Structure formats: C-alpha cells, structure tokens
C-alpha cells in the first residue's frame, strides 16, 4: 500500500533545545564537522488505496491542522514515499 510522508520541523527562528543538546553531545564526541542539529518529525501515512490529488490534499490539511502546530512548527514536506 502506498505511503505518504509528512515532515515537520520546528520553525527556524525558534530555539530547538533537543537539537541543541544533541549538537552539544556530537561536539563532545570530538566531531567538528557539523555545526548544528535540528530535530523534526516524520509521519508515515499508509493509504488504503490509490494516492489521488484528493488524498494528497487531505494529507496536506491534516499536516497543517493536526500533525503540526503552525505557531511553533512548519510542514516542510508532504510527499509520496
């Protein structure tokens, strides 16, 4: 069955304490390659049937209204896996 992937990230201007803590832990392991980590969420929505435009639109609506909180997060992708 097809899967729609929804990706949500904390808004770039907001502090991401979990990402910051992870970034600090990477630095403590001696790595200097990566300067920042931001942590978001990935949702996999299994579709019962065919992915039509209507199904994608429904996924987009859910992503914006429920899977993310637009005050603190952005939906960065709604795509067929």
């Amino acid at each position: 069955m097809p899967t729609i992937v929804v990706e949500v990230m904390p808004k770039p201007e907001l502090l991401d304490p979990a990402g910051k803590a992870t970034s600090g832990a990477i630095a403590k392991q001696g790595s200097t390659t990566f300067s920042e980590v931001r942590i978001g969420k990935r949702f996999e929505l299994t579709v019962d049937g065919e992915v039509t435009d209507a199904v994608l639109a429904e996924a987009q609506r859910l992503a914006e209204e429920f899977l993310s909180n637009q005050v603190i997060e952005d939906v960065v992708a709604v795509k067929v896996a």
Partner: protein
Amino acid sequence: MSVRIGVVTFPGSLDDRDAQRAVRLAGAEPVALWHADHDLQGVDAIVLPGGFSYGDYLRCGAIAAHSPIMSEVIDAANAGMPVLGICNGFQILVEAQLLPGGLIRNDHGDFVCRDQRLRVENASTAWTSAFEAGDEITIPLKNGEGGYIATEETLDRLEGEGLVAFRYLDVNPNGSLRDIAGLTNERGNVVGLMPHPEHATEPGFGPDTVDAMRSGVDGLRFFQSAIESVLARV
C-alpha cells in the same frame, strides 16, 4: 446554591484528583468529567488539569485538544463559562486555540520543579478576581515543556490588551517569552497557566512561606474567584 466545578480526566492526567480537592477546599462541589464523554454534567466551570495527556505524544496537549469532551468544553468556553487550564491543561487550551501561542521544551532542556513566585497581572478574570492586580504569589511549578512562545505581534497584542494574566518573578524557569506564566482570553473566562494553583490550597501541603513551612495557600484564590464569578453570573 452549591457551585459545581468539573475537572476533566484525560488518559495521562495526573493532577485531576488534586484539582478536585482544591475545588472542594475552596467551597465548591467537584465533578469528575471524562474525556471520552460528550457530557459536561451541568457544571458551572471547568478545570483542565495537569499531567501528560496521551503521553505528550504528537505535541503536549495536542491529542487531548481533539478528544470528545473538548467540543463541549470549547462551546462552553465560547459561551462564557469559566475554564482554567493548568500546566498540561494550559497546553490543551493553546492546542484547542482557546488561547494564542504555543508551549515548547524549556530552553535549558531540563524538567523544572520549584515553588515559583508570580505576579498577578490581570485581576479581572473569572479565575483571578479574588486577587489585586500586582499581587505577588507563590505556587508550585513543574514542567518540561513550559516555554511560552508567540510571534512578536501576538505578544504585543497580549500585552496591549492586558491578556497576560501572570508573569514569572525572580527567575524565568523555562525561557517563556516576556516572562509569561499565564494568559487569559479577551472575555476573561478562559485562563491558562503553567504553574499549579491546586497544589497550594491546604496548610501543610503548599509551598513554604515566611510564616511556616508548607503553609502557602495562594492557589485557593483561583478557585474562590471562579466560585464568585459563577455566583455573580446567576
């Protein structure tokens, strides 16, 4: 008449029993409400208690904000019924868009538990009328995701319209913008805050005061305010 104040229990609520006890100590009748019902049992006011509803899955308060009873709670709030959201209850009010902005992980990354001093900024809401504006109170605070955020525009509007109900004093425990600890809506019937008034309602079990250990009962006046407000509406 006896004022009846409902306390909603969601899966993962922790402080529902404490909120019921606070309601009783303030002189009202507590009514246990269940998240899966579509029935407010005729209560006069509602408390959304603290805890970790639905394990904080998705976002704190997000799933609870869509639970069955919330459609009745939202209708009642919009009709003027006093509704108080404490901690996770505040997160639920924000997710239900009854109050603006959002709550994110504490800026220092740690769970914080302390007796917190607050200033009452707005004493004309249904839950703060027993205070005077500018009163300084101490009630417990315990959260991991209590950092209040909103856009600059929203923050300016909240300040301009007097909708900041409580502000943190001494320390900002979680990185909340403009030291905001709690908010009210325009009508003053919906109030949400991260600290816990229900844990400061009985001598011997509250925060320490200069007079005696654990004697702080500043939280009692939240519930007394709601009782006054309900009686004034009748």
